[in-house]
Each structure stands twice: as structure tokens, then as C-alpha cells.
């Protein structure tokens, strides 16, 4: 597996250790990109800061909480509403954002008074919310404000509120990943074990590392409810603050994004003996295997199988409609962390696309091990990319689409490469069987949008054809398809609803079973 040197990064020779090409017959022991290191000076990274990782990724998806940044307004602005971690309480946590708005005078004289005032104001402005998370930023960390002391003072004065303090300033780590780590451990140390939950089922899990992007968590909770599995807490998408204080009582931690949340699972295993089961919630087969494993753990695998059979029968013809049209399309899979390995093999197997490159902005070497293992030979894998490297890779690999964040995504658009937002999605949810078809539909819509062809014409110099009408998506995607596929009566396009969460939120379930209670009666 040779290391790869980008032409544009020849002047930063250290970058060579951060990129490899997966060679034929070679293994992870031949070469592995470096990862989770400070960005090399001269390389304009696409990473976020450790405050952003703590607040933006993990803290803010908690839904019944005032999320207050103790710092200049700019830190908060960058973490506001850019990710679609929705919730079923009218999206309180993304509708409102709070900051103490630190200014020069606070840096000189301290900002603890301002912090207390802001806390009080926020609780007053939202009288129905009794929980708060406070996030330290570079400014408040450097002047040494004692956020815990202020929070404690408020809790003493207002016994009905509870406050969590996250000390993860922007400089606390090479990337947002440092913040993931800090908030995991802070939550565990400060809050887990401080609430006793009502146990309603014999089968109790925490669902960890799931952030309810466009409703992913709600899709998964539906499966768990159908299996009779009680989800004590989701860390943290659509999660309730007090539920997350009760994480110590689960029988099993089901871990989705190990990159951002393995820390809390590892510590829960050490401190409370709760085992950690890593799963994949994306794709038909991984989804099926994951539910089956949870079923096996509790001895209810037949319930998982019933869901698998029903969902597969319902959605397979639709996934296959898209697969037939996406076969052989080249993808650069360039997410932040875990989707690199959640998706690398399964988009190839189930959507028929070829992953020609994987990268991770803030992943560790362990994520690269997983991602490189799962992608096909010949793929270019690189860590902590910069914009020029991304451009060079797109120019040489000529992908049909890239899956990435909005900053590199906009860069891709400039060179007419369509992109899907791997962090916030387009028309999600993308988890579960239906979600996976919605993802395939988004990929199809992006690749075959007629706009890309039109955009390639430069009206200042190209001849504009006036004898032809517009081409439609279907004309483009079906041009080389066999009649058998084109006229198939079994394959069909997505037939779900525009908003597939609406009905889910109204759904009712059979009550959970509790053997111990039944025995006692």
C-alpha cells in the first residue's frame, strides 16, 4: 500500500504520511495514514475545533436543554443550525441558540458575572426548560472563569434546574474529535448515575453515537419498539437530558458512531459492566445483522427477523431500481469520521457504486483501519485533507459524485462535481430500510440532475444548442439500460412519503413486557 504524495502538497512533505492507495494484495500492516494529529502548518484543514466537536456534534442534539456557549458570539454562530439534528419537541435545540456574548471587557475583568446573568436570562426566557448545558470556549478557558462554580451557585438558588458543564475549549485537541472525547467523559463523570429510570422492559438498551440527523434515531427507535426493547437513552440525538443521566441502568450499549461515542461506552463497560455492541445502521444487510444481534443478545431474534422480512420485502424493489441506474458510478466518500466505514462497503454492494476514495477530517487511525478494510482496491485514502488535495483528487479520479460536508461540497460544485451532504443529509432520514432507499434516491437525483450538463456550457464561449429541448433525469439515467430493466414490472422508484417521520411519530406500540413483574403477580 504505497503512500501517496499529492502534487499540491509537495511543499509540505509531512503530508505524504497521511495518504495511501489501497494496493492489490496489501493489508493494513503495509501502510496506514497517520491520523488524529495536529494539522501541519501550511495545510488549510477542513476540521472544526474541539468546542465545536463537543457542542455541535454531541451536546446540542439533546432536545430539552438550553445550550449556552460561554464565549464570543462567533463561536456559537458557527455551531448554530448547520446540522439537521431534529427532535420531536418542535426542534427546541436547533430553533434557539444561546451565548454569553463575551467582549473585551470580560476578558479584562472576567465574565463570571455575565455568565450568571445569561443563565438566569435564558431560564427566564424559556420557563418550560429546566436543563442547561454550558460550553466553555477558548476565551472563557483562557481567562479561567470557573463555570462549574457559577453553575452550582445557580443550581443552589434554583433547585428545579440542573446544569451540565462541558470544558472543551477550541484548542483542546487537534480537531473536533478532542471535544467528542471530553464531552463523553464529562457527561459520564458529572451526570450518569444521578437519575434512576423506570425500567419497563426485560430488554433495555442505550442507543449511543446516534444524532437523529433528519430523523435517523426515530427510525431506529421504531424498530426497537417493535422488538419490545426499551431504549433508556439515546446519546444524544432526540435524547432527553434526564434519560441520559440514567444510562447506567441499561443492559446493553448499542454503539453506532464509535468515533464520537466509544469513550462513554468503554467507560460504562468498565464502571458498570454494561457490554458494548458495535452496529451498522446503514444499508439493508448491515441493518438486518444489527437488529439480529440485538435480538440474539436478549433471546428475541425472531422479533428482529420479522422486521427484517417485512422491511426487506417492502423496500428491496425500490433499492434495486436505483442500483440498476447507479451501477459503476464513481464516488468519493469524504465524510468527517464514522461514515467512512459505515458506508464504504455497503454503498458498493447495495447501490452498485464504486468508492474511488475515502477520507476523514477528524478520524483516528482506527477509523482508517475500518474504512480501508471496507473499501475496494485502488481507492485513495487520506486523512485531514486540505482543499487543494480535494481538488487534485477530484481532477484525477473524476468522481461522479462526492459525499462530504458543505464546505468541501461547495468546492466540488465549482468544478461541476455533484455532492451530497454526508453530515446533514439531503432528504433523510437515511437509516433503516426506507432511509437507505431515500439515500439512493438522493444519490440518483444528484448524479442525474440535468443541471450539471447545462452548467458545463459556458455561455461566453460555447455554442448553445437551440435545436434540442432539456433532457430529463430519466433520459440521462436510462440511456444505456437494458429493456429488461427499463420495463421491469418489479422494480420501482421510491414510493414513500415526502415526510416519512410524520406517521412514525403518531405510531403506538404494544406495552413492553417484564417477566419479573409478571412472575411476581
Amino acid at each position, binding site marked *: 500500500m504505497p503512500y501517496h504524495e499529492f502534487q499540491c502538497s509537495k511543499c509540505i512533505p509531512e503530508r505524504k504520511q497521511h495518504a495511501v492507495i489501497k494496493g492489490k494484495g496489501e*493489508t*493494513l500492516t503495509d501502510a*496506514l495514514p497517520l491520523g*488524529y494529529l495536529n494539522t501541519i502548518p501550511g495545510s488549510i484543514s477542513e476540521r472544526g475545533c474541539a468546542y465545536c466537536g463537543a457542542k455541535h456534534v454531541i451536546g446540542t442534539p439533546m432536545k430539552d436543554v438550553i445550550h449556552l456557549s460561554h464565549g464570543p458570539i462567533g463561536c456559537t454562530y458557527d455551531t448554530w443550525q448547520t446540522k439537521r439534528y431534529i427532535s420531536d419537541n418542535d426542534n427546541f435545540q436547533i430553533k434557539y441558540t444561546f451565548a454569553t456574548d463575551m467582549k473585551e471587557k470580560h476578558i479584562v475583568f472576567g465574565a463570571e458575572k455575565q455568565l450568571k446573568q445569561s443563565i438566569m436570562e435564558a431560564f427566564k426566557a424559556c420557563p418550560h426548560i429546566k436543563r442547561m448545558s454550558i460550553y466553555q470556549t477558548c476565551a472563557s478557558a483562557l481567562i479561567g472563569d470557573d463555570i462549574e462554580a457559577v453553575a452550582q451557585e445557580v443550581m443552589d438558588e434554583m433547585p428545579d434546574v440542573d446544569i451540565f458543564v462541558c470544558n472543551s475549549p477550541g484548542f483542546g485537541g487537534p480537531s473536533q474529535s478532542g471535544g467528542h472525547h471530553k464531552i463523553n467523559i464529562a457527561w459520564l463523570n458529572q451526570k450518569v448515575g444521578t437519575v434512576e429510570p423506570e425500567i419497563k422492559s426485560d430488554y433495555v438498551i442505550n442507543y449511543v453515537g446516534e444524532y437523529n440527523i433528519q430523523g435517523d434515531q426515530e427510525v431506529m427507535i421504531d424498530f426497537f419498539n417493535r422488538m419490545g426493547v426499551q431504549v433508556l437513552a439515546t446519546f444524544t440525538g432526540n435524547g432527553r437530558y434526564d434519560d441520559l443521566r440514567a444510562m447506567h441502568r441499561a443492559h446493553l450499549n448499542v454503539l453506532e458512531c464509535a468515533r464520537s461515542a466509544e469513550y462513554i461506552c468503554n467507560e460504562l463497560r468498565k464502571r458498570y459492566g*454494561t*457490554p458494548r455492541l458495535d452496529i451498522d445502521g446503514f444499508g439493508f444487510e448491515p441493518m438486518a445483522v444489527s437488529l439480529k444481534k440485538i435480538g*440474539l443478545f436478549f433471546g428475541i431474534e425472531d422479533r428482529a427477523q420479522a422486521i427484517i422480512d417485512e422491511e426487506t420485502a417492502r423496500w428491496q424493489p425500490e433499492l434495486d431500481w436505483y442500483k440498476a441506474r447507479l451501477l459503476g458510478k464513481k464516488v468519493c466518500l469524504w465524510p468527517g469520521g464514522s461514515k467512512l466505514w459505515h458506508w464504504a462497503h455497503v454503498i458498493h454492494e447495495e447501490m452498485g457504486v464504486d468508492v474511488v476514495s475515502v477520507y476523514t477530517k477528524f478520524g483516528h*487511525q482506527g477509523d482508517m*483501519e475500518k474504512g480501508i478494510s471496507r473499501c475496494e482496491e485502488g481507492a485513495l485514502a487520506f486523512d485531514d485533507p486540505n482543499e487543494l488535495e480535494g481538488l487534485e483528487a477530484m481532477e484525477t479520479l473524476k468522481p461522479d459524485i462526492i459525499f462530504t460536508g458543505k464546505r468541501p461540497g461547495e468546492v466540488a460544485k465549482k468544478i461541476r462535481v455533484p455532492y451530497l451532504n454526508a453530515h446533514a443529509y439531503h432528504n433523510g432520514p437515511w437509516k433503516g430500510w426506507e432511509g437507505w432507499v431515500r439515500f439512493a434516491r438522493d444519490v440518483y437525483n444528484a448524479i442525474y440532475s440535468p443541471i450539471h450538463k447545462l452548467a458545463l456550457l459556458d455561455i461566453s464561449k460555447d455554442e448553445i444548442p437551440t435545436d434540442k429541448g432539456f433532457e430529463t433525469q430519466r433520459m440521462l439515467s436510462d440511456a444505456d439500460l437494458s429493456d429488461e430493466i427499463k420495463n421491469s414490472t418489479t422494480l420501482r422508484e421510491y414510493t414513500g412519503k415526502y415526510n416519512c417521520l410524520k406517521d412514525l411519530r403518531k405510531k403506538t406500540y404494544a406495552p413492553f413486557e417484564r417477566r419479573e413483574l409478571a412472575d411476581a403477580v
Partner: protein
Amino acid sequence: MAEQMNDKIAQMENYIMKKCLWQFHSRTWDRKRQNENILGMTKRILLGQPVDKDTPEDRCYWVDAVTMAEAFRERCPWLADMTKDEIAALMDGLYERIDFLTVTGSLNQELNDQHY
């Protein structure tokens, strides 16, 4: 003969590396424990021996082991023609290989970090 064995191990290795996540926990001691327990249990299942799964921890290993044993039986039809001794030797070889790829031969510099 050795070549045939290596080829079989490679097929199983490919399944693990593509489909599983349990082998990539974040520290050396963690990976060793996962490899030993999960592959150990898979071996017992394939040999038709009983597996101890009374504690939640063991049950969690078993979940991955039983899923993998099922997948091996499905994807590696040649397993059905092997004797128990051959299966035992094959699984020992697979264990050694996975330990090499994920622990002893791994280039992951975080594996020996003292903290999680």
C-alpha cells in the same frame, strides 16, 4: 496443503474485515480481548462445543461469534467437508492472522495509549 489453508483463512479474513467492527476496538488490550473471546467462541460453535454465555459480557461476545459462525457456514461451503481437527487448526490460524492484522502488525499508533 498450507496454501489451501491460507486461502481458506483469507476468505474468512475478508468477511471479518469487510463486515465486522468488533476487531477494531481502540486499544491493544481491548483488541486482544475481543479477538480471543469472539474468535474463541466462533471456533467452539463451529466445532459444536458448548459456549459459556452467562454474563452480559460473554453474551455480547457470543452475539458476534454466533453471527460470524452462521456467515462462515453460509459463505464457506467447504467447512462442511472438514473434520473437527481441521476446523480447529483453521480457526487457530484465523485467530493468529486477525491478531497480526489488528494488534501485533498494526500500524495504529494509538493502540498502546494508556488511556481510552
